[in-house]
């Protein structure tokens, strides 16, 4: 655990312009990932996970539609730290898809339907690694083979619609890996896939990570997947980090009531099939970012809500020890209650 | 000929006056009414060149499409025919018959027509050849007349021709025939009948669709060049032409369906001569001021009138017609709407004709008297100020061809004029193909505003127009669509058609005109004019009221 972080994010905030002012989509997000580490970012939809990752990729709209602040330092090829948020666009392009790559939730639509698989991979390769078309094709074959696509050479001339969703996600991974990135952001890469395929893809990612030592930021709302793949977990709610911990302590003893709720709604693999009845979902909805609740953003849904306290002041992110943080005024009391 | 035809819609759009309306464009009467100074401009006498030289671009707002001169067609077509074909004889601007393919005009004096008018003998000019070099003979004339009467052939008209029997070729340059009955207008009809080649058309399986129809061969001063449909027709000089000329190498008939564009191109010099439908009245003043251009206001044989349906309720009453006529502010129509160009008239015969009666009573605009006349006749004002008599309201519709804004203006003026005497006029215009179809032919109209050439060529015979036996709605086969019936008229019409002595005929037709004027069988407005333009330096232009197109003598035109 002593490797230096390849990516350090500090006080990341994203605000979108909307009717009648600005809306904070993400505020005050800080975290870091080290080489070979997998950080899972979890939360319901609308919690700001994807915005965070797109902000790091600089794929969000430009100002004035969208404002990004904070710092995100990525270790460059030469070890220098690059602030992703302040890099000029031309330099950012050299980093994007090269040092930091991303795969997306929708393998069905994330590939250009009118271009062959080969073209789409070689395009990525040749963009960052000057080489001949033929050499790039060889490299593409190697990558396709690497991500476990059978008969890779024939696949070069295939179009995306010839492939299944799982296969397409493998192609996406191949594209992301083409330049051996230091950080791979995987935004819900398995959500749209069948359970068996999901497992295969997760396996593949794990294997690739072991091979290349890249850091993976794994965005998901599926805590089952988190348990399987993550080293550390970042829980987000309403655009903020609400809890951060290593995966085991978090699953063993969630501190933030929101995390607890999330965990409760997960179909436990060991219980699967045995437990009848619906999973207890967290009641209520993610707050409207245009009208965030006062105090703790989670208080309207929290079963430990204490009027006059939770809705009065916004809680700060508190260091709990072991590099663990939580954002809750009552976490001590609650953990005592639940322990009791 | 057809004065009133389907407008090419284009003419209707920008241009307004279509053939109908342009003919409607009043008449500045005779050559004496040419714009001042035009004689001076024409001054410098020049001579035609030795050999054909140069070209003339004739701008037309309607497209010539029919090149078989025996088939149904309109004036623009005939303008082309004059240059490709020849008739036996033609009528010059003064109304004299001039021999062309014939050596002389047959008459009772020279023995060409028998005393009873039944036997005709035609002697032909020698040495005439068709454009392809084949000699022209009496067989061609015989073939032409027989083709017109051939059952399957869509001849334009068999009026007169159907009387011709026993055509005999007595020599290559002479033929005779017998008429079923004596028919004086036939001389005039033949002056507009072009002779077609037997050796070509006679070979065709179906003369209606023969290739000849789009690659005509004639005996005229120009030969067929090419046609770009919808755009232009090109004719080349015929070096073997039997008459004088041609002095031009080429003639291009350019189809410019919009009168504004037509005028613009005349102004900019792309068009050398503006033919049918002429210069639009709103441009006339400007055109007259143009340098290097001459404007000719030429009378046509057409008379603009309101043709009432004499069987329609209120209009059957002569007093109503008289009152309506008196309530028309003719001067306003002519001066304001037609820019003072046409000449008011009381007759259906153009004033240039030998048969014209100059002594008809003059129109008087007097709404007050008109009102009194209607009061006296028992037409009382009813609801909305509209008069009534015996339950019949004094209301009528007036129709004309749509897309003729100038005439629509006249209609609207009329509406206001007639409202003042308690007559309710409603406008009910229709496209040409509709109004002149059953609506007109079967007399389903109430009144129309129309410009009609009543003449048969240069002949004033109006039997088809006013004979009681010529009412199609009553089974007749003529053009008496206004349903005029008067036994005295029938008698005079028969008399006029069978007289060969012009002085005697003149008396007959003067009587006819005065009866029509007295009965107000039509409410005559004015004799139409055509405002044409030529470039300065273009000589030989001679408007001819008897030929339906002033392209009739292009062979005589030349550049100074």
């Amino acid at each position, binding site marked *: 655990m002593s490797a230096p972080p390849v990516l350090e994010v500090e006080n990341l905030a994203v605000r979108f312009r909307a*009717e009648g002012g600005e809306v904070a989509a993400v505020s005050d997000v800080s975290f870091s990932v080290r080489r070979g580490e997998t950080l899972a970012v979890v939360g319901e939809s609308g919690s700001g996970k994807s915005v965070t990752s797109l902000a790091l990729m600089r794929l969000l709209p430009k100002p004035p539609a969208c404002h990004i602040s904070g710092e995100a330092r990525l270790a460059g090829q030469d070890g220098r730290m690059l602030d992703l948020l302040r890099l000029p666009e031309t330099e950012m392009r050299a980093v994007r898809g090269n040092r930091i790559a991303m795969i997306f939730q929708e393998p069905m639509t994330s590939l250009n339907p009118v271009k062959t698989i080969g073209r789409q991979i070689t395009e990525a390769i040749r963009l960052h690694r000057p080489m001949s078309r033929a050499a790039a094709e060889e490299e593409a074959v190697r990558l396709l083979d690497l991500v476990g696509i059978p008969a890779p050479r024939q696949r070069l001339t295939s179009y995306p619609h010839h492939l299944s969703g799982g296969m397409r996600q493998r192609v996406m991974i191949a594209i992301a890996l083409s330049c051996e990135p230091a950080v791979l952001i995987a935004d819900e890469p398995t959500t749209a896939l069948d359970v068996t395929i999901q497992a295969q893809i997760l396996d593949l990612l794990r294997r690739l990570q072991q091979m290349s030592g890249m850091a993976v930021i794994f965005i998901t709302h599926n805590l089952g997947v988190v348990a399987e793949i993550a080293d550390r977990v970042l829980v987000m709610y309403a655009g903020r980090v609400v809890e951060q911990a290593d995966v085991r302590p978090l699953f063993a003893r969630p501190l933030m009531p929101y995390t607890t709720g999330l965990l409760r709604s997960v179909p436990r693999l060991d219980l699967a099939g045995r437990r009848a009845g619906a999973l207890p979902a967290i009641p209520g909805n993610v707050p409207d970012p245009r009208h965030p609740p006062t105090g703790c953003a989670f208080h309207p849904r929290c079963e430990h809500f204490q009027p006059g306290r939770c809705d009065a002041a916004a809680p700060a992110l508190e260091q709990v020890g072991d590099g663990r943080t939580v954002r809750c005024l009552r976490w001590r009391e609650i953990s005592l209650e639940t322990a009791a | 000929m057809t004065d009133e035809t389907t407008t090419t*819609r284009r003419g209707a*759009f920008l241009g307004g006056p279509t053939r109908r309306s342009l003919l409607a464009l009043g008449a500045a009467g005779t050559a004496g009414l040419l714009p001042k100074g035009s004689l001076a401009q024409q001054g410098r006498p020049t001579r035609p060149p030795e050999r054909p030289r140069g070209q003339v671009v004739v701008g037309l707002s309607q497209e010539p499409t029919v090149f078989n001169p025996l088939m149904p067609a309109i004036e623009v077509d005939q303008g082309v025919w004059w240059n490709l074909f020849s008739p036996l004889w033609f009528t010059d601007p003064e109304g004299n018959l001039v021999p062309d393919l014939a050596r002389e005009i047959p008459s009772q004096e020279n023995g060409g027509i028998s005393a009873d008018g039944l036997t005709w003998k035609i002697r032909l000019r020698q040495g005439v050849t068709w454009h392809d070099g084949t000699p022209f003979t009496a067989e061609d004339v015989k073939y032409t007349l027989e083709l017109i009467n051939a059952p399957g052939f869509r001849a334009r008209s068999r009026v007169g021709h159907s009387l011709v029997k026993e055509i005999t070729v007595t020599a290559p340059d002479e033929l005779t025939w017998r008429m079923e009955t004596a028919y004086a207008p036939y001389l005039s009809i033949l002056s507009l009948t072009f002779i077609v080649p037997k050796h070509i058309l006679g070979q065709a399986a179906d003369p209606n669709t023969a290739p000849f129809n789009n690659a005509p061969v004639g005996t005229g001063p120009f030969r067929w060049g090419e046609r770009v449909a919808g755009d232009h027709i090109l004719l080349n000089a015929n070096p073997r032409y039997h008459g004088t000329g041609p002095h031009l190498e080429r003639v291009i008939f350019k189809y410019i369906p919009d009168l504004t564009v037509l005028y613009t191109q005349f102004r900019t010099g792309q068009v050398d001569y503006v033919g049918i439908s002429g210069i639009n009245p*709103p441009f006339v003043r400007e055109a007259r001021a143009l340098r290097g251009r001459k404007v000719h206001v030429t009378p046509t044989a057409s008379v603009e009138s309101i043709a009432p349906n004499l069987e329609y309720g209120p209009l059957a009453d002569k007093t109503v017609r008289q009152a309506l006529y008196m309530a028309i502010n003719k001067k306003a129509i002519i001066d304001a709407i037609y820019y003072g160009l046409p000449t008011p008239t009381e007759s259906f015969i153009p004033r240039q004709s030998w048969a014209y009666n100059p002594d008809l009573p003059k129109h008087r605009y007097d709404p007050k008297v008109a009102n009194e006349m209607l009061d006296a006749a028992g037409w009382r004002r009813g609801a909305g100020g509209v008069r009534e008599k015996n339950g019949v309201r004094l209301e009528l519709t007036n129709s004309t061809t749509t897309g003729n804004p100038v005439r629509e203006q006249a209609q609207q*003026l009329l509406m206001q004029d007639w409202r003042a005497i308690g007559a309710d006029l409603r406008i*009910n215009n229709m496209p040409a193909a509709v109004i002149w179809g059953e609506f007109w032919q079967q007399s389903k109209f109430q009144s129309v505003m129309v410009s009609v050439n009543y003449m048969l060529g240069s002949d004033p015979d109006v039997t088809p127009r006013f004979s009681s036996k010529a009412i199609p709605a009553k089974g007749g086969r003529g053009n008496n669509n206004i349903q005029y019936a008067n036994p005295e008229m029938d008698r005079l019409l028969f008399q006029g058609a069978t007289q060969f002595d012009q002085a005697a005929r003149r008396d007959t037709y003067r009587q006819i005109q005065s009866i029509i004027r007295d009965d107000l069988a039509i409410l005559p407005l004015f004799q139409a004019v055509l405002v044409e333009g030529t470039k300065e330096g273009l000589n030989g232009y001679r408007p001819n009221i008897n030929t339906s197109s002033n392209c009739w003598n292009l062979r005589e035109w030349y550049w100074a």
Partner: protein
Amino acid sequence: MSSTATVPEATAPSRSNASRAFRRFRRHRMAVLGAVTITLLFLASFLGPYLLPFNDTYIDIMHRFEGPFSGAHILGTDELGRDMLARLMMGGRISLLVGLTAMAISMAIGILVGAIAGYYGGVVGAALMRLVDAVLCFPTIFLLLALAALIEPGLLSIIVLIAATSWMDVARIVEGQIRALRERDFAVAAEALGASDRYIVFRELVPNAMAPVVVAATLTVAKAILLESYVSFLGYGIQPPVPSWGNMLNNAQIYLTSAPWLAILPGLAITLAVTSFNFIGDGLRDALDPRLDGR
């Protein structure tokens, strides 16, 4: 002529969306501008003539072709000395009337054909939709001209004419909507409850397919006003002396060089009205189509 952009497909049936739609519409600035313009044009056309000292059909032959802003007549006089402003207003009445009525009729035909074809499907539906296809094979103007030959020019016939050439789009929209909707729960439920076909189609299905039809209706008004001007331009328009923007334009052509305002004013009026309706249609489309929320 305008074949304005496509009409959206399915939209949410719920009426509770109305206020949200209205809010979205209000956000569409050009659409609001269009609505305001149309309102003004309506007011001018239907109230304006009562405020003017001139009659639109009174001919004053001594004062023809008076230019705008030159005398008693604010916008000048026409070729017969009639007040241009009065004629523009009365012409607006006719043109707007033609536009709206033709729209209503074509909507009625389109909805009827579309609903029947969509609900019954099968041979009837196929036959009807092939008919729609066949009519759509004619360029509108061609069809319009061919039809115009059939009837005498006049206000009513022109309305019928235009309606007869603009119902096909609506028929297609409604057919598609109904076909999609009839499988949905509420139609099935109504059927199970034993409702008559007519009831299901016109009480349950059609109202739920209304959103795109409303958009199409607005665009049809625009198209109808344009078509009226085309028909008039081609000489098959409304009979004089009744003015419409189209026949005013038609009559003005020969005076284009000498009295250009006669052609320019009605042309502007048409453009203004048609643009406004098109913008309203555009705004409605955005407002009624939730899929476009993000745009």
